[in-house]
């Protein structure tokens, strides 16, 4: 069981040099480095979006619709004459950097990131409780999560979003609900393993409460596999956001959403202006591949060090 050994190895590492160790891991793997560069490109572009383009994502130029790359618009324009580069990097912003709650309130952290975070919190709590307590609680939690996992993911998204409507917050909710069963299972299996360790025995002997043991003793020791899993999950979340947008269930228009940009641009491909569909497709593909390369590289390297 690879998860087990990973948890052990990370536990024995000293806390202070962790950052340097991660950096060393990153630099020693070509795969991870490539992924890191791609991801950083998008994060930077998203974070500094207002400084990287003179256009806003909503500005329409009805005299120049569906154009190819030019000096004025480096990636071209969409069917309403909106600058594609501006829409692309503002789209990355919604995915990675900001979460628009309402028109006025904006949270830092990106829709995909929040979706994974909420799923992590709920999933870890469920996994911890069901792994540590065991018995009928475990049985009920796991059986209902099994039932949830039996539903095709796309159907779950479709039903959830068509029920609660399409908005950034609802996309977060959908991503979180879909992500919970997987995380809960992972945390549960890690908990079952850690539960048998001596330091848990000693905490029990000290008379610590169940909550203390679960969240202070066990949870920090599950972080290694969880971090790698979370990285992959951000990739899935971006994948899911794109898919929802493509199906017309993502951010409401005219938000710059990669998936809905592709869906809109698709109609113009066969009419000779493929740019509006091509760029967001490349963007989403590169970002997801980048995240996977990063996670894969780090996992491989950290296994080699054992």
């Amino acid at each position: 069981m690879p998860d087990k050994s990973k948890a052990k190895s990370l536990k024995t590492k000293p806390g202070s040099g962790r950052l340097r160790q991660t950096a060393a891991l990153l630099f020693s793997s070509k795969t991870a480095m490539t992924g890191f560069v791609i991801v950083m490109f998008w994060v930077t572009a998203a974070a500094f979006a207002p400084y990287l383009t003179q256009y806003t994502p909503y500005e329409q130029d009805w005299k120049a619709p569906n154009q190819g790359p030019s000096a004025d618009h480096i990636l071209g324009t969409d069917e309403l004459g909106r600058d594609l580069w501006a829409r692309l990097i503002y789209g990355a912003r919604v995915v990675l950097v900001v979460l628009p709650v309402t028109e006025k309130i904006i949270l830092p952290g990106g829709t995909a990131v929040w979706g994974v975070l909420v799923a992590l919190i709920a999933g870890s709590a469920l996994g911890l409780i069901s792994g540590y307590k065991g018995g009928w609680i475990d049985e009920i939690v796991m059986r209902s999560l099994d039932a949830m996992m039996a539903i095709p993911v796309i159907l779950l998204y479709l039903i959830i979003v068509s029920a609660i409507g399409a908005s950034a917050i609802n996309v977060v909710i959908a991503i979180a609900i879909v992500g919970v069963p997987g995380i809960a299972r992972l945390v549960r299996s890690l908990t079952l393993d850690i539960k048998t360790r001596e330091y848990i025995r000693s905490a029990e002997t000290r008379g610590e409460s169940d909550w203390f043991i679960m969240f202070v003793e066990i949870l920090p020791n599950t972080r290694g596999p969880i971090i790698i899993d979370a990285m992959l999950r951000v990739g899935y979340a971006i994948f899911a956001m794109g898919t929802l947008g493509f199906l017309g269930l993502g951010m409401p228009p005219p938000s710059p959403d990669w998936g809905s940009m592709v869906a809109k641009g698709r109609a113009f491909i066969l009419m000779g202006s493929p740019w509006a569909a091509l760029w967001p497709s490349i963007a989403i593909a590169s970002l997801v591949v980048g995240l996977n390369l990063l996670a894969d590289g780090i996992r491989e390297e950290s296994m080699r060090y054992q």
Partner: protein
Amino acid sequence: MLVFILRRFILLFLTMVVVSIAVFIIAESSPGNIAKNVLGAFITPEQEASFISQNGLDKPMAIRYLYWVIGNDRVAGKKIGMALKKIVTREGFEEWWAVKEDNSLVRWKVEGNDLVAVNLRPDGTMTEYMDNDRWQTIEKEKQVFWGVDRQNHAVLWVKGDTEKAWIFITGKGLMESTGGAKEYIPLKKGFVRGDPGISFRTGRPVSKSLFIRLRNSAVLAASAFVIVMPLALLLGIVAGLKEGSFKDRFLSIGGMMFSVVPEFATGIFLTLIFSVWLGWLPGAAVLGDAAPWEKPVMLILPVLTLTLIELGYVLRITRSSMVEVMKAPYIRTAFLKGLPHRQVVIRHAIRNALIAPITVIMLHVNWLLGGIVIVEVVFGYPGLGAYLLESALYKDFNALEAGAMIMVTAAVGTQLIADIIYTFLNPRIRYA
């Protein structure tokens, strides 16, 4: 073994029940108004109320769920006091009739204070006659009648107190008529008996369109499956034979890239390459009424997209299973006793390495279904996934729920098959 399979069956059944209830509740409680979707945004409140009552949407949710699952012709038949029968007319319409004492079929309409019966004899002749004897007096002065109207509802008429009704006819729009009833039960046989009702969006029975869509999707999925499986298993074995070699890194990183890119992006790339740039293939799957195998050219791009995505996943699983097997002691023993490399790989390694992928692939059907939905939307392929999406966006819940149930059945069913295959492949479970 038998107990194990039985347990899985019961679990499958329970999952289906829970999912169907969940889908039903979520779909029906979601915002948006089916009446406005069907009739347009400018209907009057009376028209909306008439539509809602004619479609039985004013009934409690539990009752609607039961009607949807097991049908309501028996309940309605009891109210009317006659058996009900569904027939298919020569034009292909489905009609509900009550069976009269002399075995001919009958429906009713109300004109003023009179109840008029429409009688269809077995020889196909149709006659109308006054049928006022059927009014039943429940209180003084108040006479009611439960019957079947001409739009496939079981209805409750009150003599002298008919409602103004708006009847929606697909293709014609909303027609005003008199003689409306107090209570409607839209007749259907129920999902488990093969009739999930009428689609609000198309006005046709869901079961008819669903069957064609399901067949199209099955053709798509099967073609992709037949191509992916041998290819992915072969490449996975090649990659896993020598861990860390160039071939291994190339195949596993390449496979990963294809499998994590969203289906719609892959679809767009392939369309651009093969239909815009090279001009070899059509960029959209226009089938019309033809079956997919009659126009195989339309299938190439959708199948290729699915293939690329599934290929990477199956390849990686086969690879890691192969890597694990190649490290096993019995492989070392086989090499040490001097067996040729070919024989070790084919007779000893591959057999053991294929157990894991075959079962995991079945579990992956869940994801494959998602891929199919997107691929169908990208290429405009008329399959189950596209149907499901259209129904969800329209809030056409008869269709949405039926499609969802079929999808869940496919997913859960393949998981059951995976379990059974696994027990057969792995003797340690079989003989336990």
